[in-house]
């Protein structure tokens, strides 16, 4: 049965009293310490500054733990430990032995999957379904995948020998904390490098849990060091003279700062930065599947996804239908407690990010676009945002040009293939793109002409350890995942 709402959308109502019962995951399956030190040289070390900062649960704003704030001296200690481990142990270790450590880490992540998923959702706000079914298993798989490469590198680069680079400084974002740690650490240590990794300041806990796993796996001390802190800690890593390689995932602005900071040094760098992906629906597309894909493309992980399909281009002839179906679907999304297994959209990662999203919502309205948001009720405490879409968006509007990093979709329309290619490519970013059509030749025409590193056709937001990921243009350079994810951590020698 369906009734018309004031927004002229059809709301599916099966029964007036029908609703999902809460199905919360138990917090008791996870151990979170009151305080975390820095994981340096295989041990937990107090920060020289003696300073700690809180990490909170964005779902209810309660403090979860406090973590050490690493200063320049701590970064230096971590880099020295990594250098020692590189020269004395890791570089010399037979590659097949290196591989076995990494396989072991993958297995231990699998063993502790439930605990990791709970901590991920508590600390970052993402729905437990996503942590449990996507983040944690994909992280384990990433280690498993790269473990196998360690002793096969001579097959990866025709006519070249490979050498590790040395010490890699890795800085990761808050949207996929454990998965990004895996994306960074696994290829780095499989190729024989050692690591200093800094998780984001709002989501340090799964990386610290990973440090416990590394300890338990008997990985030689110093091969992976995990230190916590904010921007200043990241800058200290980037500027440390004994680091050979910087790998960064985060905003384009910070990526540019890093590119400038390493000028005049021999540091290698890979940057995986922002995006504003075009997701294109043609009139011949299976509309229901496409709508589902668009919903997944933008509302997955509260839209905190660099490759989110945040610009939707709909062919004019089906625009009305698509927009109506999107509105219907938005109404049925469950926003709330990240630990509830029914939740589709969890908490926004931080107050700061929620403010950024709100800023863009008012910009969108001011620029003349029409805003539609779900009518769902939001929890009283915590950082939440309703799934939102804008129609009547112009190509030049800021909500169509800038990365919002929230559950906000800009809907634009087009008539011809050439027009939509022009519009889709009209962006400084080039991380991902999507196309929905039933015609094979049109798929290839589109996927070929879209200037983006990852193109999803009749699907969206799919990831796999064997599939290279990374951007064109200002979305950064270098690839993570697959065979192509090895090169950023190796020197090729004649």
């Amino acid at each position, binding site marked *: 049965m369906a009734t018309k709402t004031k927004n002229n959308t059809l709301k599916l109502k099966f029964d007036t009293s029908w609703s999902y019962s809460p199905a919360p995951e138990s917090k008791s399956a996870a151990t979170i310490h009151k305080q975390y030190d820095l994981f340096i040289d295989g041990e937990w070390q107090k920060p020289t500054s003696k300073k700690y900062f809180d990490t909170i649960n964005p779902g209810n704003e309660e403090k979860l733990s406090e973590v050490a704030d690493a200063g320049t001296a701590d970064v230096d200690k971590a880099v020295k430990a990594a250098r020692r481990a590189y020269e004395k142990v890791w570089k010399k270790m037979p590659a097949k032995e290196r591989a076995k450590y990494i396989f072991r880490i993958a297995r231990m992540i699998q063993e502790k999957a439930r605990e990791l998923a709970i901590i991920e959702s508590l600390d970052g706000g993402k729905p437990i379904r996503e942590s449990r079914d996507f983040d944690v298993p994909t992280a384990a798989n990433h280690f498993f995948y790269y473990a196998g490469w360690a002793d096969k590198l001579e097959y990866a680069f025709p*006519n070249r020998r490979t050498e590790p680079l040395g010490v890699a400084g890795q800085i990761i974002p808050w949207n996929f904390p454990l998965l990004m740690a895996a994306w960074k650490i696994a290829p780095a240590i499989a190729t024989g490098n050692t690591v200093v990794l800094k998780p984001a300041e709002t989501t340090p806990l799964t990386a610290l849990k990973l440090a416990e796993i590394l300890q338990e796996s008997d990985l030689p001390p110093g091969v992976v060091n995990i230190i916590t802190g904010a921007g200043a800690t990241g800058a200290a890593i980037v500027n440390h003279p004994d680091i050979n390689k910087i790998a960064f995932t985060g905003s384009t602005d910070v990526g540019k700062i890093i*590119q400038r900071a390493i000028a005049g040094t021999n540091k290698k760098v890979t940057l995986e930065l922002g995006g504003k992906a075009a997701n294109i629906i043609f009139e011949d597309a299976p509309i229901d599947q496409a709508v589902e894909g668009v919903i997944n493309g933008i509302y997955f992980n509260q839209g905190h996804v660099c490759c989110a399909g945040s610009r939707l281009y709909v062919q004019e002839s089906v625009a009305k239908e698509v927009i109506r179906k999107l509105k219907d679907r938005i109404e049925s999304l469950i926003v709330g407690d990240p630990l509830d297994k029914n939740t589709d959209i969890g908490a926004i990662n931080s107050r700061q990010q929620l403010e950024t999203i709100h800023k863009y919502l008012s910009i969108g309205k001011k620029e003349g676009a029409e805003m539609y948001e779900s009518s769902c009720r939001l929890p009283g405490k915590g950082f939440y945002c309703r799934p939102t879409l804008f129609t009547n968006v112009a190509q030049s509007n800021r909500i169509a040009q800038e990365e919002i990093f929230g559950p906000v979709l800009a809907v634009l329309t087009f008539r011809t293939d050439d027009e939509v290619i022009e519009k889709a490519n009209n962006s400084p970013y080039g991380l991902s793109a999507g196309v929905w059509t039933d015609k094979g030749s049109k798929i290839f025409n589109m996927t070929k002409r879209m200037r983006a590193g*990852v193109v999803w056709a009749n699907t969206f937001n799919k990831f796999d350890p064997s599939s290279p990921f990374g951007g064109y243009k200002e979305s950064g*350079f270098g690839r993570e995942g697959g065979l192509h994810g090895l090169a950023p951590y190796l020197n090729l020698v004649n």
Partner: protein
Amino acid sequence: MEKTSIKKSSISISENGIEKKASAKRLAVLKTYKIYIGGQFPRTESGRYYIPTNAAGKKLANVCLSSRKDFRDAVVAARAAFGGWSGRAAFNRSQVLYRMAEMLEGRKAQFIEELIQQDAGKSKAEKEINLAIDRLIYYAGWCDKFQQLFSAVNPVATAHFNFSVPEPTGVVSIIAPQGDSLLGLVSVIAPVIAGGNTCVVLASETKPLCAVTFAEVLNSSDLPGGVVNILTGRPAELASWFTDHMDVNATIYCEKDSETKKMIREKSAMNLKRVFFYDQVNWYTAEGQSPYFIMDSQEIKTTWHPVENIAGAGGGY
């Protein structure tokens, strides 16, 4: 300058009266060394010139001292040519590069003469032009092969067909090697265009003659205008424009100057250009050529598509 002396002619044609006297002197035709933008040979818009000299102090030519505006015009031409060139069949690009080698071979003598004017000994000049021709042949062969070598079909765990292929990054600005003015130039241009990119190249400042003559070779080689644009001038003046232009996707620098390298890195951050320093490469050896040079100006694109899985049917045969 080149051939400024008036040579005595030994030709004697009496019947038709073109030349009456055996001792008549013929004035040599001097070549104007112009820049190459969008398949045309304009002078620099700035109207400026400089006069490079060889070791003996002999003037080589009045050479265009290109400006920032010339560079911008060249980028416009390169961007306009990118769609067509990258859209060509790889096999077709291969033939165009081969044609470039053919044209170069045909004008060997001229290049040897210019290299000698620019202080090379005869045997070194011959070696350089021969290697330059062979290098074009080498990359001509790569045009339709490197993709297979560096592509992958990725065995993802879900029901998707997933593959990764290299694609050209776009417009590449190149500050060519200052020393090996022909071989270095050819060695940096060839991999960039073999992969489907277009480029704007700044020739050797002190030895610019071969670069301009090479532009003439390109112009008669079926290479579409705008794919390669060649400017002459001063790296010290132009390097920063080569690096901070927002419609350039990558920059290649071939000298060791650490200040310039630092500047290039800093400025490249404006739009996150890919930056490559080829300052350790010996262009005369095997290390001067490889498909990895092609891959430097390539992006990897990964495409996903679902594989239909009807009613949970298995994938068996």
